[in-house]
């Protein structure tokens, strides 16, 4: 009997804690979230999964030729926010996005903007490698082909090769381009997905933990690639590795339970965090 009452109490406690968390006052982001001449601007972005709010009033700019890394504890909404940037959340039933997200000044949630065009301009590498169940060649060639980016087979071959080279996969697969992409190892699959994304030459590349399945060598190749891509593209990368964030990104955003807590120069975030939560996370006291 006693234990039951105890459990009941614990349950109500937990419930009210959840309510409290939900009613928690909107958290003002620390640091300057704007950049001059931004590629994308996000204002007051909120995301709900059904009745559950996953992102709360996030303001964030993504600059040109910069790598922005997003860090934060698991489940804080990094992937959710990232998926807003190319309207990937449209495919999730019950998912609702409010606020404004602009790409080069144009609202991407505008009725007039075609999500297909948007996704050609804002490419994405997913958290779990998801190659098509087709050949390695087809995986990379698919995007350019449907968009009609190349005029000849030779051109397409070349594009496939350069994309695979950039993703650091060419030497491993050049002799078996007609083999299934799903037959590669997890890390190779992820690099194949990266090659697939850059083959379309988007303006912005979203990467959701692209290196979580890679060994240090492949990771180094990808990080090099990211650095190289920065010359022409904007890159947003979600990562759990703070070393990686420090290595590749110019700006860093720290998320916590759906709030954007702090954003700033990567150097400053890692050496001199302004917010208590950021500091706790970076110093390893949290997360």
């Amino acid at each position, binding site marked *: 009997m006693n234990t039951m009452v105890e459990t009941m109490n614990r349950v109500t406690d937990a419930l009210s804690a959840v309510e409290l968390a939900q009613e928690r006052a909107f958290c003002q982001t620390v640091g300057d979230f704007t950049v001059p001449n931004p590629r994308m601007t996000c204002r007051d972005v909120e995301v709900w999964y059904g009745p559950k709010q996953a992102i709360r009033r996030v303001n964030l700019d993504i600059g040109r030729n910069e790598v922005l890394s997003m860090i934060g504890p698991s489940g804080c909404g990094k992937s959710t926010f990232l998926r807003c940037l*190319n309207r*990937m959340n449209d*495919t999730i*039933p019950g998912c609702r996005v409010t606020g404004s997200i602009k790409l080069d000044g144009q609202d991407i949630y505008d009725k007039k903007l075609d999500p*297909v*065009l948007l*996704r*050609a301009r804002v*490419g*994405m590498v*997913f958290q*779990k490698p*998801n*190659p*098509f*169940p*087709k*050949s390695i060649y087809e995986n990379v060639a*698919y*995007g350019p082909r*449907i*968009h009609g980016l190349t005029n000849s087979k030779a051109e397409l071959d070349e594009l496939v090769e350069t994309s695979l080279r950039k993703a650091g996969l060419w030497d491993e697969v050049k002799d078996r381009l007609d083999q*299934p*992409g*799903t*037959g590669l190892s997890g890390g190779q699959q992820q690099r194949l*997905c990266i090659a*697939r*994304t850059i083959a*379309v030459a988007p303006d912005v590349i979203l990467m959701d933990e692209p290196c979580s399945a890679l060994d240090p060598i492949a990771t180094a190749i990808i990080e090099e690639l990211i650095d190289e891509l920065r010359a022409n593209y904007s890159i947003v990368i979600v990562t759990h590795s703070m070393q990686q964030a420090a290595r590749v990104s110019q700006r860093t955003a720290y998320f916590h339970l759906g709030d954007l807590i702090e954003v700033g120069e990567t150097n400053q975030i890692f050496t001199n965090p302004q917010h208590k939560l950021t500091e706790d996370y970076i110093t390893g006291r949290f997360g």
Partner: protein
Amino acid sequence: MNKPAPQITPTGRPNPVDIVRASLKRRYARERRFRWLGATAVLIGLLCVVLLFADIILKGYTAFQQTYIRLPIALEAESIDPEGTGARAAIEDADYLALIRNALFELFPEVRDRQERRLLTSIVSVGAPNLVREYVLAHPDRIGTTQEIWVPATADIDMLMKGHINRDLPEAERRVKDQTLGWIDRLAAEGRIAKRFNTPFFVNGTSREPELAGIAGALMGSFYTLLLTLILSFPIGVGAAIYLEEFAPRNRWTDLIEININNLAAVPSIVFGLLGLAVFIGFFGMPRSTPLVGALVLTLMTLPTIIIASRAALKSVPPSIREAALGVGASSLQTQFHHVLPLAMPGMLTGTIIGMAQALGETAPLLMIGMIAFIVDIPQGFTDMATVLPVQIYLWADSPERGFVERTSAAIMVLLAFLFAMNLAAVLLRRRFERRW
């Protein structure tokens, strides 16, 4: 069994390894029992199938042979082509029954009585004159000669030769009388009776006479009906499934549609027949007893099966594939056709083949739209009167003549062969699509 005593670890609790080991025996025993049960179930199933097949084949294999009588038929020019014009019409109109009768009387000159002569004539099938006519039409140059021609025996003689009529019965209880037996034995002694491959069974339409009845009409009827059913139901079913699964908004209307599709799958098939009769024949005035109407009714019947199976197949395609395609900028339609459909196709084909197999074996709704009519002609298209295999089996099974018993079983074999052919085609198709990378 000498169970080792559980060792006590320093923490005072039994060693987990010992606990696991103690439970292993029980777990394996359960596994063995389950495997045994499964094997028994499969065995029982197999046994039933073997029994069924054995019964059908034993009863039906004799139908693939037919008793023929070789008669020396004098193809007299004066009775076939009296004017000697060689005109086709004249040859077609000639009285071939008379020629056959003459040949028989020639063989049995001692039979003089009218009654007896009629009995003698009846050992040959009523389809024999037709056969002789075709022979003459094929070889008009042989008019005026006497030719040895194999003509089919009547069904009773056929049954006698196949041992289905007991000679030891008293004459009054026997369908073949002593006198006829004598003639047959004499013909047999002269080598004039033989069992030959029953080609007419595969090329004729049905008939009132068992020895002339063939399966070709029903086979072609089933073929046309199923072909049209497939042509209609596969694209419609797959299209509906794709729309409902991938494009339709989730609201009260689509919920209602979904519930109704599931309900339709459970509606007794005869109801579809009534619907077809009222709507397609009554309202639209389509020709009754035709593969066209049959296919429409069967399409209605198989659609729910195909839609439900196709939706399940679409659901089983991992969402990450859709995301990947959308992520590189494919439109919804491209995502569907380039990535989702190829992966869902094997499941869709499985659903379709189940639906088609159901349709192939369906009788009740087709009775309602008149496909039970007695149709001798082999249908040449979708709008010719036709019947289908299961209906033909039903009709033959209902006939009293002994000759139809073996033909019923033979028709079932043909139906099963049709089914196997269909399944084989589906398996081959599926294997092509199933090159899952």
